[in-house]
Every structure is written in C-alpha cells, then in structure tokens.
C-alpha cells in the first residue's frame, strides 16, 4: 500500500514537471486535462490505498526507505493509522479539487502558473504525513509551503497579491524554522533525526517545554492559530479557488498533523499544561476567527477567517484529548480525539465545498465582493442548492456533518468535572461557552453570506447576467455536499475508520466501539455509554423527512394551493432599486456593534452628501486586526529600524573600514592574550 501511495506521489511530481513541457510542446488544453485528470487519478489511488491500509488494518505500520537525502540519513517513510487518516483527508479533497479544477482551471488567468505547481502541492501534502524523520518531514513541509506560495502568486498581477505571497512565505518559513529548532531539541546531543529514536527517548524538563513551545509555534502558525493567524486571511484568498480550497481545507490540517504527531506521539507525556495551552489558543481562535469572518465583504476572505474558527475548534478537541489522556480518562480522551479528528475531516469537506462555491461565484460574476452579488439563486440554482448544504454543514446544523463533530466536542467538554486540576475544571466550561458562541455566530455568518450572495435581488449587472458553472465544477461540489450529508447522517462511516487511529493515539478506543461496530452503534451515536447522551443523525433525518412530507401533503390537502405572483409588499413601501436592499455590512451591523468595536476597533463612518448633492451617501467600515497591530506591525517596524540604523555601514570611508579591520585584529589578539 505504501508503495502505491509513493507511486502516486511520484506521479504527481512527474505531472508537475511534465505540465510546462506539454504546454510548450503540445497545447495548453492537453496539459490542462493531463494535470487535472492525472492528479485526480493519483489522489484516487493514494487515498484508496490509505483507506485500505486503515480499514484492512493487517499491519500497524509500514516502513520504507528511499535512497534520498544524505547517505547516512536516507529518507524514512512510514504509514501508520494517524498518517493514513490524514492521507485520506488530503486525497479525498485533492481528488475533489482536481475534478473541480478540470472545469475551473479554464477560468484561471495564467494557467501556466498553476498547472506545474498544483500537483506538486498535492505531492508535498501527501509526503508530510508519510515522513518518518525530521529531515524528510521538514523537506516536504517546506516544499508544501513553497509550491503553495507559487500558487498564491499565480495571479501575481493583481495588486496586493505580492504582499500576500511575501507574508505567506515568510510566515511559513518562520514556522519551518521553529520546527527545525524543535527537532534539533528532540534529536538531542547525539543528533538522531529519526522519529523512531525521538519516540524512544523523549526529552524531559526544560528541553521538552522548549520543544513543545516551538512545535506549537511552528504548527500553530501554519494552521492559522491566533495570534499567528494574520497571514492566513491574506494569503488563502489570493490563490485560485481550487488552491485556496486545498490550502484552507487541507494544508492547515496537515499542519495540525505535525502538532499531533509530536505532541501525542513523539513527546510521550508532555503533561496537561500543554493541553490547556491548546484549549486557550483554540478558544481564542474559534471566537476571533468567526467574528472576523462575520465582518468580511470578500467571500474568500470570509471563508479563510472561518477556517481560523474551525482550526480553533479542532485545537479545543485536541487540547481536551490531551488533558483527558494525561489524566488517565481514556474514554473521554478517545471521545475528544475522535471529535477533533472527525472535525478535521468534516471541515476539510465543507470548507472545500464553500471555496468551490466561492470559485463558482467568482467565475459567474467576476467578483468576490458580496456587495456586488445577490439573487444568484435564480441564476445558479444548482450551485445555490449545494451552497445551502455547505452553509448548513459549516454552521453546525443537523443533520449535516459539522453538527456531529461539534456535538462530540460538546460531549467531551461535559466530561470536565472528572478532571482533577481546578484551572481546567473552570477553564473547560468557559471554553465550551466560547465554542457555543462561535457555533451560533457561524450560523449568523453564513446566513449573511448566503443571503447576500444568493438571495435578494442582483446588486450588479454582472450578478444579474451570471450563468451556471460547468459540469466538472458542479460535480465536485455535489460530491462534497453528498459527503457532508452522508457523514452527518451516518457518522459511523467516518468514526469507524477513526477508531484505530484514536486507539493508537490516546491508548484507549471509543467505548461505543469497544465491542465492534454493532447495528445500534451505526444508528445511535452514543460515544460514552449506551442509553446516555446520544444522537442519531439517521433517525433525525428520516423523521424530519417523513414529517416534512406529511406536512406538505397535509397542507396541500387542507389548504388551497393557489399561488399569485405580485410585487413584494414590503409594508406598502416597495423600494424601487436593488441598492436599497439590505447589504452585507448592514446585515453585520448589529453584531459589529456588539463585538466589533471591542475587538476590531471597528470604525463606522457615514459620508452623507450635503442637501442638493447628487452623489450617494456611503457607509465606510474600517476594521483593524489586533494581532497585526500588536505583533506583525511592530516586527516590521523593528526590522525597518535596524536596517535603517545599520545602513550607514555601506558608506564609510576606507580609513574607517581599515579601522574596523584594526579593531577586529586587536580584539582577537587580546582575546588570545587573555585566553590564558
């Protein structure tokens, strides 16, 4: 199986190399089809191989050694349940993205800048979970960053994208540097970079703390955890939509894979404090992310911000798993871990779906600004229906998949009374409250987005004359929507493969699955004990369907089902122009008043024309990212300051340079003189 995956990865690399050649040699279209269909195939192979490994489960892990890198450090590759799970996530989404790209790629400005790097990016993301030594891990990690950076720069002519790419790559490399140092600590003085050796003797005391801090910094910054998130809403939207989907839906998860691998696997028992750190970061990220999403006007930026929220939710799950694990509460740890890993999958599905929708909107209307859309449910009915599913899923509404993982996270939160540490006993419920708030705000956020984009009347001629997107894109979106519903209705299809992963991760399986997947386990999701807290997507879904059908039937029997069309009533004052309808910013206004002024220093400025002026009044809303103000801006300023101060060194006179030489000489001489 590992071989199959490696072959697929190699194929992806080859595609990346071939693409420009084919473009130059044959034609762009051939290259296009070759790349996207090829990557779809490769993802299919790799994904099914990983799934087969996980479900078939005859071997705990498979190893392979490639004669690459340094002679005494050949690349170690290994697949175990954890990496298999993440490989499944990567490749399911990769497959969808390739199919989508088959259609969407036609609308990219400069395909030549996308085709070579798209498969390379996929390959990089496939390699990270496979890496079994620090060098290979970092190599593929950085490679993943580089290829996605080039994809971010794909439409490099648009203003602002250069800045996006710059910030993105620098932050990515910062994360990589943190990981490099962390692995240096883990490797210890004898410097063995194999994960196996690190696992064998994990550090303790200060080194362990430093290593974990660096790991959290490195992976957290890549995953977009607050306060290192600021690059994410800038970079993810800049890429073409199918790439944004991969970056937001998958790459952030791969980053979390690194976190899990080190904290749960390599470090042994890092103690509950780090779980608490994850909880805190997760809570802040969740709330912050969704609030900023709620205030965005750019669809893709909004989605990127909501990614920050979901990363927060996953981190909360991981933090809970960590604290429960070290407190010896196996069942709860398993529950929390399942919730987190399930949300990894769910969020990948729904965020990708939503980014695909954003791409469809962009191709249909040529804009990403909500304020220029509207009424698209009429023009893009199918996309609208699929988008509705995605929005419901990402707002954690039953019977979709988002609800399942959040429900399980809540169940895990409810286990907090069994914890011994008082800080956690108080902290976890607060986290739960934040989580609840985030979930509710998510619903508001996506009602706003969907309502403004798809409902109402067209706000721009482009929106009025939009056309439904092509079959490939619709197929990709439909597939993902179907998966969202399927996982929501029958969570077992995802939880069952997860059981092995969780068991390996926290050392104890999910109690519900202790005695295999029984029928009741399939129907009733009762993670802890049968009869207690339980949820059944299937039953809810079926009953809802039955009830709805009977209601429809009943109402149409009882009532007269005549329908008259007329102008909207609107309390008797139908507004003439579409510009008068509710806008995205006006929709967000109440919540902006409640939260925005506090967190984002939101400033609303109404520019009201004098009587007699004909220009329209404008409402201008300015938001500032506190993390940017507090962290990034000062750093940039500091660099500017230092460089400014150092710059004169370029303009000294020769005599001064000679004196520098002289000083150096004297210093070294006196050092030698004093060294004995």
């Amino acid at each position, binding site marked *: 199986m590992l071989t199959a995956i490696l072959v697929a990865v190699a194929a992806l690399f080859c595609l990346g190399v071939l693409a420009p050649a084919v473009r130059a040699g044959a034609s762009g279209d051939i290259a296009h089809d070759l790349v996207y269909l090829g990557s779809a195939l490769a993802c299919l192979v790799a994904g099914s191989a990983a799934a087969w490994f996980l479900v078939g489960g005859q071997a705990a892990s498979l190893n392979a050694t490639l004669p690459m890198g340094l002679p005494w450090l050949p690349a170690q590759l290994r697949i175990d349940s954890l990496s298999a799970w993440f490989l499944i996530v990567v490749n399911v989404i990769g497959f969808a993205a390739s199919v989508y790209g088959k259609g969407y790629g036609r609308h990219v400005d400069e395909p030549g800048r996308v085709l070579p790097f798209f498969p390379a990016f996929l390959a990089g993301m496939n390699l990270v979970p496979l890496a079994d030594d620090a060098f290979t891990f970092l190599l593929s990690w950085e490679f993943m960053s580089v290829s996605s950076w080039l994809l971010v720069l794909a439409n490099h002519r648009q203003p602002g994208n250069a800045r996006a790419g710059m910030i993105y790559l620098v932050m990515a490399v910062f994360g990589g540097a943190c990981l490099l140092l962390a692995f240096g600590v883990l490797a210890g003085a004898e410097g063995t970079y194999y994960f196996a050796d690190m696992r064998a003797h994990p550090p303790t005391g200060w080194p362990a703390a430093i290593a974990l801090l660096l790991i959290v910094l490195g992976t957290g910054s890549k995953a977009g955890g607050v306060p290192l998130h600021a690059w994410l809403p800038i970079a993810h939207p800049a890429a073409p939509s199918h790439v944004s989907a991969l970056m937001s839906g998958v790459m952030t998860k791969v980053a979390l894979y690194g976190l899990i691998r080190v904290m749960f696997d390599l470090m042994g028992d890092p103690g509950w404090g780090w779980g608490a750190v994850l909880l805190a970061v997760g809570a802040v990220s969740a709330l912050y992310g969704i609030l900023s999403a709620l205030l965005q006007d750019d669809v893709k930026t909004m989605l990127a911000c909501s990614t920050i929220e979901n990363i927060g939710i996953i981190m909360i799950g991981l933090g809970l798993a960590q604290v429960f694990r070290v407190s010896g509460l196996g069942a709860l740890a398993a529950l929390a871990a399942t919730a987190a890993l399930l949300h990894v999958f769910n969020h990948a599905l729904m965020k990708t779906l939503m980014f695909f929708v954003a791409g469809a909107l962009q191709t249909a209307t040529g804009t990403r600004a909500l304020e220029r859309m509207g009424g698209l449910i009429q023009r893009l009915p199918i996309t609208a229906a699929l988008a509705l599913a995605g929005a419901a899923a990402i707002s954690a509404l039953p019977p979709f998949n988002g609800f399942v993982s959040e429900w399980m996270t809540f169940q895990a939160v409810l286990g907090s009374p069994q914890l011994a540490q008082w800080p956690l006993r108080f902290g976890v419920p607060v986290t739960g409250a934040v989580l609840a708030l985030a979930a509710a705000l998510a619903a508001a956020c996506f009602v706003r987005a969907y309502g403004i984009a798809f409902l109402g009347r067209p706000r721009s001629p482009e929106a009025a004359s939009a056309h439904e997107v092509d079959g490939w894109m619709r197929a990709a979106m439909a597939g993902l929507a179907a998966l969202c519903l399927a996982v929501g209705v029958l969570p077992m299809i995802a939880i069952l493969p997860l059981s092995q992963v969780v068991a390996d991760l926290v050392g104890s399986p999910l109690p519900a699955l202790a005695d295999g997947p029984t029928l009741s386990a399939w129907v009733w999701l009762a993670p802890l004990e049968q009869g207690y807290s339980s949820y059944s997507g299937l039953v809810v879904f079926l009953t809802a369907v039955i009830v709805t059908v009977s209601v429809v039937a009943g109402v149409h029997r009882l009532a007269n089902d005549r329908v008259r069309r007329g102008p909207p009533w609107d309390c008797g004052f139908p507004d003439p122009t579409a510009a008068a309808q509710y806008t995205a910013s006006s929709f967000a206004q109440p919540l902006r008043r409640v939260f925005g002024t506090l967190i984002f220093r939101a400033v609303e400025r109404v520019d009201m024309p004098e009587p007699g002026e004909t220009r329209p009044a404008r409402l201008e809303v300015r938001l500032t990212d506190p993390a940017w103000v507090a962290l990034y801006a000062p750093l940039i300023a500091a660099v500017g300051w230092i460089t400014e101060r150092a710059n004169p060194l*370029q*303009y000294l*006179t*020769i*005599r001064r340079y000679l*004196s520098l*030489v002289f000083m150096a*000489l*004297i210093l070294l001489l006196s050092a030698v003189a004093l060294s004995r």
Partner: protein
Amino acid sequence: MLYGLDFDIAHTLGTSVLLLSFALLYQRRLTGVLEAFALQAVFVAAAAAWQAWSQDAPHLYITAGIALGFKAIAIPLALGHIVRKLGIHRTVETVVGVNLTLLAGVALVALSILLVFPVTFASGNVARENLTLALSVVLLGLLMMITRRNAVTQVIGFMSLENGLVLAAVGVKGMPLVVEGSVAFSVLVAFIIFGMFFFRIRERFDTLDLQYLETFRGDRQVDRP
C-alpha cells in the same frame, strides 16, 4: 661563537626600527614623516643585512638591498615629488591627537609583548625579541594607517607595516621566499603610489576625486518594504 653580540646587534637594530615607528606617529610635518620613514627603512635594511651575515643566508642581502634602495631612497623621493606636485599642504592631519596615538602605540607594544612572552623557542631568544619588535611595528603601522587622514601618510603607514614583516621574516632562521615576498610588496607599494598618481588623490584614499562622492552613494535612497 659570538652569540651575545649577535643578539645585541639584532636587538638594537630591531629596537631602533620600533622607535622610528613611534617617530612616524609623532611627526607632525609630512616631510618629517618622509625622513623618519627613510631612516626606518635604512635600519630595516641593516637588520636584514645583519641577519644575512649572522645566519650566513646570502639571499637576505637582496632583501636588504631592496629595502635600502627602494624604500629608503626611491619611495621617499617619489612621495616627496607627489607632495610637491599635488601641493598637499605640509602638515599631517590626524584623526586623534598625537599624544593619544602614542599612548595607543604603547598599549599595542604592551599587547605584543603579552602575546609573544609565553612563546618558548628552541631557537634562542633572537626570534623572540625579533618577533615582539616585528609584531609591534606591524601593529603601529596599521595604527598609523588609520589615525592619519593624508594619503601619503597612509602609504607610509602601510610600508612601515611591511617593514615589520621584513623584520619578522629575516629574523626567522632559513625563512625561504623572503626575497620574493619583499619583491611582491615592492610591487604592491608601487601599485599604490601609481594609483595615487593616476587617480589624482589629493586628500585621502577614499576621495579619488571630490566632485562625485555623491554619485556612488546613490545606493542610499531606499524603497522600503
């Protein structure tokens, strides 16, 4: 064999070279600097010749010859010519006060003694003394290069630094390539002086010509990130 005398003479010559380095630092007039340097060159030549005799290494006579002919006579003349031709005003402009420079010089000598002192030699004290003196002369030469603004004085500083090298080289038994080395250096110095002629250096090395100092600093205005 006359070990003591050998030692004394070598020592005396070396010491006088060092003293003349101080004299170079002390001089306030350009002509005076030139004379002091010529005298130093003479002593270096003498030291070389003495070593040639005492180690009976005839090739050192060549070194002595170069030192005498080139550095003690030709260069001072050439420089004097430049000084007159370019009409460089006669006084030496110093960066830090002369007394301060001298103090620094003393400190440098102390440092070199400190450095060489623990060295133990199979080959008698000759080399040790020589080494101390040579090291001091080298450091003093460098000091002169950086504490004098005038191009001529800087060249002279460089050459007295090189005198230190010669002193060290001849002091060591059977050092090969000394001649080649001194020749190479004469070439180097010739280059420098030629350059000063060629580029019309009035003041310092780093102002080839006053008018365009700014153009090269064009790198200064910056587009920020």
